[in-house]
């Protein structure tokens, strides 16, 4: 899955390199038109493309597989035979999902940066505010964006873990998690449901653009972290309750 994710920025970079017609400014994903001028934008563009679907997809697969996958393979009861306790198993499984969130985001960012450096010239980066920053600082900001997206995906991982405790069919848990992430994003785009928007776990997913402003706006980073922490707390508590009462038969 990481390889598939790494392919996205490479595809973008190659497609932009091969197309003779320069992309019109303002069309397509963020910064697509500026890739030819500065390769460092490949990473950001790739992240913008991946956040709505590809990243939730892979995170949904990993998070949905955590408990249900073990149950399906019949290995869950052997894991529980060890004197480690169910909370610990749950925590370790969640930590694994979190590690994947980070690995996935970092993969996209790193492969994007690499593809951009190889195929396009590299120079000072223009921020949304119109100011330019050095290559070093832009790398720092890329790291911050990767951190932001990792945090953004924590809530979804917790939801996946919760669903995973309810079923023995991993595919069901994966599909339900991914569907939830899509539903949440659709709801987030309906202006009629504005009161609901701040509570949707996908509401701040694209807020990492705030890290590309000068000076950096930390508001959405903080609000996003708080929201995801809330989802982790609620889903974690429910997952613990369900899992500790579960009759593990397989």
């Amino acid at each position, binding site marked *: 899955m990481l390889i598939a994710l790494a392919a996205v920025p490479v595809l973008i970079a190659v497609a932009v390199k091969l197309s003779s017609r320069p992309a019109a400014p303002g069309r397509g994903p963020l910064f697509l038109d500026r890739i030819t001028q500065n390769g460092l934008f490949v990473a950001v563009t790739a992240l913008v493309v991946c956040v709505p679907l590809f990243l939730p997809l892979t995170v949904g697969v990993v998070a949905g597989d955590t408990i249900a996958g073990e149950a399906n393979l019949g290995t869950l009861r052997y894991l529980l035979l060890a004197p480690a306790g169910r909370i610990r198993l749950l925590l370790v499984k969640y930590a694994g999902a979190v590690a994947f969130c980070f690995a996935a985001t970092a993969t996209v960012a790193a492969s994007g940066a690499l593809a951009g450096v190889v195929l396009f010239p590299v*120079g000072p980066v223009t921020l949304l505010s119109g100011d330019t920053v050095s290559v070093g600082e832009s790398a720092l900001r890329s790291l911050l964006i990767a951190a932001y997206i990792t945090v953004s995906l924590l809530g979804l991982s917790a939801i996946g873990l919760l669903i995973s405790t309810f079923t023995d069919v991993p595919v069901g848990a994966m599909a339900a998690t991914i569907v939830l992430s899509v539903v949440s994003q659709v709801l987030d785009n309906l202006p009629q449901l504005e009161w609901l928007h701040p509570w949707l776990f996908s509401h701040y997913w694209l807020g990492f*653009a705030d890290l590309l402003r000068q000076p950096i706006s930390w508001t959405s980073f903080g609000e996003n972290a708080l929201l995801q922490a809330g989802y982790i707390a609620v889903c974690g508590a429910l997952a613990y309750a369900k899992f500790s009462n579960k009759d593990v038969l397989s």
Partner: protein
Amino acid sequence: MARTRQRWLPALLIPLALAIAVLFGSVQAGASVSLPPKTAEEILAMIARTEVRALSGTVQQTAELGLPEVPTSGPGIAPGAVSALEFLTGSHTARLYVDGPLRARLQVLDRMAERDVVINGGDAWFYNSRDNSATHLTAPVKPTVPDKHEPPMLPPEMTAPDMPTPEAIAGRFLAAVDASTEVTAAGSSTVAGRSAYSLVLNPRSAETLVDSVTINVDSETGLPLAVDVRANGQAEPAYSLAYTQLDLSTPDAGLFNFTPPPGATVTEKVLPVKPVPSMALPSAPVPDHVRPAPDVRGPGASVTGKGWDSVISLPAGSAPAELTSNPQLSQALQPVGGGRALTTSLLNVLILDDGRVFAGMVPLERLQSAAAAQ
């Protein structure tokens, strides 16, 4: 069984605790603070005395005028096609940095994009990140008669107080206060974490659509922090502009030095030329229209009535082209007898078939009778 229940306990308690925390937080945010009471005159004097020259803050503008929401992204929306209507619907957030009267920066924070206005002495830069375009305005030798639809950012008004701050809007309303307005003090509130006095302007006229204007004034500095305009028969404020964050320290000087990024399309203009339409917006439409009539005068415009129920009329041919040619605006226009009308909860504009335009914060019928009278 008891054990099972015990295990479900945290699952119940944690969401409950979070819900309580959220509720408590929102109650606390809305709680009024206790300040020594002041009369309306004292508050007005505070505003007049305010000496805030530097600040950095975040302002949020919300307009609920009853217009359909304009999509700002998605298929079919050309980049840069945001129109005057955009700032008449929905909510917008902007960051504002001011250092003295000559240096200011406004950043309209769009989703995945940003529009910047940087004013530094006689130079003004408009930058739009969506299409990476920049417009550089330099001050001309002598300003000419400002057109009604140009932003109040032209010299000699090309100064920081004319940024769309709560202070600027409040200033316009207060400047128009006369015998037709009842000014009262209305307790205290909290805006952007600062305690504030509330000042309410009530039009004495029953003809106007405006129900009341509330201005929240910082209790320490006398700086207006928020302006709410309420329309008759609407619970939500029709228009509100408020700080959500405010810091009264001097912002970093580097913020006001703008160099267009490499690859940007730069347009050089010498004033008075209308800047890029989308860039003109942060300050232009709402404040221009919302403020009471007297200072809205274009060539040939005439004002009938006084105070809140005044009607501005423009003779044929002088209507700004944007009113008739803008496709988004045309969609919002409704056909009425003798022409078309833009009706909102706060402002009505009547465009007659013969080209005359009538506008005012009054019901449509009054515009029609004013049109018939001429």
